[in-house]
């Protein structure tokens, strides 16, 4: 075959020709499994690496705008699934895969990615207890974000109904598959625009792949940024997702989440009854205290006691009176004795004493004036002579002045 028949390409023309052949569609939108090597996260934000298997290798580029959605940080040696389109890098004439998405391949890799994100978010402080919001004690409305199908919603509603019937705002949420993480994020954001006071984010058990949405960074950040406290209840007791670490409270199962979210009605009823008993007890004691106080006061104004006191006073008065009487008597006795003594003296001086000794007293009639001297009377005057036992009426016959001494 001569040069003429096929023509001659320039390098560029050839490269473009190859490129157009390769990029027609057959190698677009393909998933390829391989192991990462020569990984470079360039300062431009684009990622350059190779994926390889035992026999071949494939150059890959992931542009910044695709890398933004990466759910983990690729590492050398990591087994991955990449989604991309074939491309030819014209300057170098090499074909390469323009990677649009990348996933860890296999459980081991998923765990690696999980550990990676967990460490990163832990470093950022997203799991810190300081950021945990307290749950309301008595929620009035609970937001539930979970799948509309499956047992989770039913379990949660059943437990809530039994324990503490409350208003529930349910938001149907995809919890598995491609769009699950986005659905969870928008559910959390939507519930944050409502008046719910706590959110339960739930999903039944499953493999790490099934639960993967709950290990994604955008979901973790949405939980962290939620104004409303979130209880995560993802998988079974033993499954821990990144969500569980970021959430304000982690519940082992959806039913447990419902139990955590509300108090138990019976327990509340008991609490109210205890309060009622305390109320009654306290009021009773208050009243009996007052009663005691009143009795105390009353006893101090008790009528019997008053009478008794009066009686005592009366006795005292009597006593005083008695004393007074006897004092008076004694006084009288003294006076009397004095009187007698004085009377004796008087007696001695009395004219009657003179009479009893045989003398007499002469009184001139009619005026009974005492006759002391012959000059006091005239002849024929009538006189009365007083003697010890009577009086003698006489007429003066004669008088004579004598010198007795």
């Amino acid at each position, binding site marked *: 075959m001569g040069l003429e028949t096929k023509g001659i390409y320039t390098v560029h023309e050839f490269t473009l020709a190859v490129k157009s052949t390769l990029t027609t569609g057959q190698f677009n939108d393909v998933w390829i499994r391989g192991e990462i090597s020569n990984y470079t996260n360039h300062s431009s934000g684009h990622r350059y690496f190779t994926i390889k298997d035992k026999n071949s290798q494939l150059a890959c580029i992931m542009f910044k705008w695709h890398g933004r959605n990466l759910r983990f940080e690729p590492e050398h040696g990591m087994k991955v699934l990449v989604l991309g389109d074939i491309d030819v890098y014209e300057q170098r004439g090499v074909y390469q895969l323009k990677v649009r998405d990348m996933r860890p391949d296999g459980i081991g890799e998923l765990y690696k990615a999980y550990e990676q994100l967990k460490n990163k978010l832990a470093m950022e402080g997203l799991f810190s207890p300081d950021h945990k919001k307290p749950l*309301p*004690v*008595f929620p*009035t409305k609970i*937001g539930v974000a979970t799948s509309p199908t499956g047992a989770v*919603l*039913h379990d949660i*509603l059943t437990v*809530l*109904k039994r324990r*503490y*019937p*409350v*208003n*529930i*705002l*349910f*938001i*149907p949420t995809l919890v598995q598959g491609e769009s699950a993480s986005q659905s969870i994020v*928008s559910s959390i954001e*939507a*519930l944050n*625009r*409502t008046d719910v006071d706590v959110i339960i984010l739930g999903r039944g058990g499953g493999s790490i792949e099934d639960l993967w949405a709950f290990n994604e960074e955008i979901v973790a950040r949405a939980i962290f940024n939620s104004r409303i406290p979130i209880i995560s209840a993802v998988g079974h007791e033993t499954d821990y997702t990144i969500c569980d670490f970021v959430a304000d409270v982690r519940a082992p199962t959806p039913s447990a989440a419902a139990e955590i979210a509300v108090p138990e*009605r019976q327990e*509340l*009823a008991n*609490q*109210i009854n205890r*309060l*009622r008993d*305390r*109320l009654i007890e*306290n*009021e009773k*004691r*208050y*009243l009996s*205290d*007052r009663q005691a106080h009143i009795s105390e006061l009353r006893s101090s104004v008790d009528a019997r006691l008053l009478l008794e006191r009066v009686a005592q006073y009366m006795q005292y008065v009597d006593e005083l009176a008695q004393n007074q009487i006897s004092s008076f008597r004694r006084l009288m006795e003294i006076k009397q004795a004095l009187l007698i003594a004085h009377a004796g003296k008087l007696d001695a001086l009395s004219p009657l004493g003179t009479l009893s000794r045989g003398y007499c007293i002469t009184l001139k009639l009619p005026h009974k004036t005492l006759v002391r001297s012959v000059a006091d009377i005239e002849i024929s005057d009538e006189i009365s002579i007083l003697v010890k036992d009577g009086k003698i009426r006489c007429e003066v016959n004669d008088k004579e002045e004598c010198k007795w001494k």
Partner: protein
Amino acid sequence: MEMSFEESLIELEGIADKLEKGQLSLDESLLLFENGIKLVRECNTKLKNAKQNVERLILENGDIKSEPFDVEE
């Protein structure tokens, strides 16, 4: 405005405490007691009458709406 269950419960505890301290006039204490018993009754009624009401949240072009949601038993 009606008190929430939580507020009622807190109020009730406050009343029980006040009565316990006992530094009140008789009228005050009787009034508090009466209020307390009323709150007990309200709380119990609320608890007894509490009903589960489930709504579903719908997102539509960035708007959020809610509608009653029937749960199959």
